[in-house]
């Protein structure tokens, strides 16, 4: 435009700058919905919590429930398993964490059953399963051993099995998520 | 200079050949390693001389028909075959009428009808084999928690294929001393963990073959294995026959193109 060239330079620069900036912001704002549409959608997020009844799980037994399409291991731990978990010192652990910090009530262990290495499901839920060298869980994919607190003790996994957010609704029911 | 370059020229071609061979060998190694790791723990099944092996292998239709009988009378109590339709059975040598009457022996759940109800009707050639259980959970509940797999793809879905299946069906033995087999499991050295939830499915003389073949365990296992191999790869005969023609064509084409290329290149000084 011929008008623009006659404007004082500062005003023209300001207009050009504002125009460019607004274009950039507008493009970003238009692209964001496209990117965010790939994030978990509303109906997926709706299945975010699950309630578990603990009444039928005997000591030494485990239950697998599905939470957010992930398996969650609920283990009713025996006295021996609790002791084993408590005895491990910081030295033994790859990802040091006290057992007491991982279980709201010591006899119940609730963990996400997905190996922290590359997302496989560790064995150890069924009676005949290989539970690894530490009596907890064993990941058959790349050989990670977890102890009775679900902590990584040996193998390639970097972190302990995740404890999901959960609370006791009463003595026999928990709400995960 | 001259001999060096000449050698180098030949070297280049040799390089292609060697590199290709090495890579193909690598493929072979990778290929042979994988079945070995997948079947880890299980004994390697002995190789069988199936009629469908080899460049122009075909299925033995009489064996397939006997195998179908074994599947229907034995396996189908627990295992589904949900990808095979009755119409496919014409490949076993049955006439369309025979297929129609065979499918009519089955009841198929269909619906909903005008009242909104599901109902049973007679099977048609276009139907697929109905499953013995309504769903996987019902199958597990009826089988001590173990899920009998669908058999439509079983020879493709197991390392060792038909050899493995035959070895497994005939591989039940007394567990060796010192090997504890838990209740509800059976010892079989070809299975990955040596103990599986399927009881020995075949017993001597269990099936009375329509063609009068004596039904030894070996015979029934061999027949049903061939039937399931067909179920998994119904295209095998067409594939091998077409392959033979294609390879022949490509071989001749390669020879022709080799000489054509040489002819074109003879102009280059």
């Amino acid at each position, binding site marked *: 435009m011929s008008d623009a060239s006659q404007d004082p330079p500062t005003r023209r620069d300001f207009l050009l700058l504002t125009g460019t900036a607004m274009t950039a912001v507008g493009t970003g704002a238009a692209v964001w919905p496209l990117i965010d549409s790939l994030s978990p959608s509303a109906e997926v997020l709706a299945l975010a919590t699950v309630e578990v009844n603990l009444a039928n799980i005997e000591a030494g037994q485990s239950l697998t429930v599905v939470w957010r399409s992930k398996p969650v291991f609920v283990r009713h731990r025996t006295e021996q398993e609790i002791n084993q978990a408590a005895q491990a010192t910081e030295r033994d652990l790859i990802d040091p964490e006290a057992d007491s910090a991982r279980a709201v009530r010591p006899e119940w262990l609730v963990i996400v059953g997905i190996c922290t290495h590359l997302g496989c499901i560790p064995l150890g839920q069924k009676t005949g399963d290989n539970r690894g060298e530490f009596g907890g869980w064993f990941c058959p994919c790349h*050989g990670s051993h977890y102890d009775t607190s679900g902590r990584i003790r040996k193998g390639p996994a970097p972190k302990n099995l995740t404890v999901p957010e959960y609370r006791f609704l009463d003595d026999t029911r928990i709400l995960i998520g | 200079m001259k001999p060096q370059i000449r050698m*180098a020229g*030949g070297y280049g071609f040799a390089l*292609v050949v060697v590199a290709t061979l090495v890579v193909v060998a690598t493929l072979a190694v990778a290929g042979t390693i994988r079945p070995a*790791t997948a079947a880890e723990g299980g004994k390697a099944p002995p190789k069988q001389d199936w009629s469908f092996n080899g460049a122009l292998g075909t299925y033995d239709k009489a064996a397939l028909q006997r195998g179908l009988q074994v599947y229907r009378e034995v396996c189908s109590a627990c295992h589904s075959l949900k990808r095979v339709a009755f119409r496919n059975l014409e490949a076993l040598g049955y006439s369309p009428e025979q297929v129609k009457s065979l499918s009519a022996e089955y009841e198929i759940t269909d619906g909903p009808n005008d009242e909104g109800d599901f109902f049973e009707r007679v099977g048609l050639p276009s139907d697929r084999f109905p499953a013995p259980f309504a769903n996987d959970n019902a199958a597990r509940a009826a089988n001590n928690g173990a899920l009998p797999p669908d058999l439509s793809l079983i020879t493709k879905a197991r390392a060792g294929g038909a050899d493995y299946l035959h070895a497994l069906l005939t591989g039940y033995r007394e567990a060796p001393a010192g090997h504890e087999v838990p209740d509800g499991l059976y010892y079989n050295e070809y299975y990955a963990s040596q103990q599986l939830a399927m009881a020995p499915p075949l017993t001597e003389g269990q099936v009375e073959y329509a063609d009068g073949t004596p039904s030894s365990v070996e015979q029934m296992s061999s027949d049903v294995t061939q039937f399931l191999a067909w179920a998994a790869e119904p295209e095998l005969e067409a594939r091998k026959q077409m392959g033979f023609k294609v390879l022949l064509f490509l071989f001749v084409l390669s020879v022709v193109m080799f000489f054509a290329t040489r002819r074109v290149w003879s102009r280059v000084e």
Partner: protein
Amino acid sequence: MSAPHSSHSGSHNATPAKGFYGWMEARLPALSLFNKTLRDFPEPKNLSYLWNFGSLAGIVLVIMILSGIVLATQYTPHVDMAFDSVERIMRDVNYGWLIRYIHANGASFFFLVVFIHMFRGLYYGSYKKPRELLWILGVIIFLLMMATAFMGYVLPWGQMSFWGATVITNLFSAIPLVGEGIVQWLWGGFAVGNPTLNRFFALHYLFPFVIVGVVIFHIWALHVVGSNNPLGIDVREERDQIPFHPYYTFKDLFGLSVFLFFFALFVFYAPNYLGHPDNYIPADPLVTPAHIVPEWYFLPFYAMLRAITFDIGIPFTDIVFVEAKLGGVLVMFGAIGVLFILPWLDRSPVRSGRFRPLFKPCYWLFFVCCVFLGYVGAKPADATLLGLPLQWFGLLGIVYYFAYFLVLLPFVLPKLEKVPELPVSIADAYSEKSSGKQKAAKEQNPTEEGQAE
């Protein structure tokens, strides 16, 4: 069609082109572009059969796109139906089994061809000045191929599809802070599921066309700088070169027919040999297969991914710089990343490995090392070799892989190697070689003839 416009056309030619050609030329000079770039394009006359694999890769790309489009018309990208729809293709669709086996084995052969193409470039220094950008575009194509192949392998929704997708997408969780978020964004959920399958299908369809785009740039760059050749010396005069057609069209067609022969061998007689039996079991998110193994062409990278089983930090302290998981991911991506800067790493003034006596053993050891890493990747994580953990040998292989690029090529070899006397003329070398061959043939000396070919 011809008369009125023919006089305006042919501004590039002394004699104006006539007929349809001339009419086209005046409006859109596509045909002359095609002629210039494909028919008359001058190539060095001494290219060996290793130079077949570039155009071969292009043809395989076309085969993959054509068979893929046809498959897409029959495939259903839904977790409940994907496996069944593939089986329907195999059993009920006319020639469905053929098209699917071509597509599935085509992926393997595409990688085979591209690997040979890349190793040829590595040996003859095809990445060196002035072909740096040509090489980098090639590496980008390779990366896109890997992404495409990975997503394609997920589509049949078998056990290996699902667990392969789970393992590979989980790689991104190794990224500090934002890793978890990125992974959920990739999945569109809290695990690999229907949204994941759907988007992988969409992207698997898209990426090959992106590859075509980069291939066009790759070929464009090739036409600017010209082909390298086995001697690695520059083209100096016209007689060093011959037109692409008919010489290389015929040579490439001969190569193509040989290639198709081996390809057909797999498609018709061993269609599942390169696959995994577990992928004929429908995906089950609650049952992990005992061994998750990627397709063979990913095995060396898979070995790198698994080899780092220790945190990297200051010894005897708790200070960790790189966690084991992130370490594996960095090594794997680094192995490809290093290819991007290769043109500036190799500081030898000589292109062709043929004239580099010390480079040769280093190169072949590198080749063996890559094959060996593939072997390590195929074995279970706790396998042993000669009584020692296989992982240790894997680490050794990785060390050599990086040493080759980061130590041998830039620092050791240029220092130790004397610059040899290179041949001056491609044409002279070629005619000496061919006359030598003819002489040998005339002498009817069978042993010498055997050596020459």
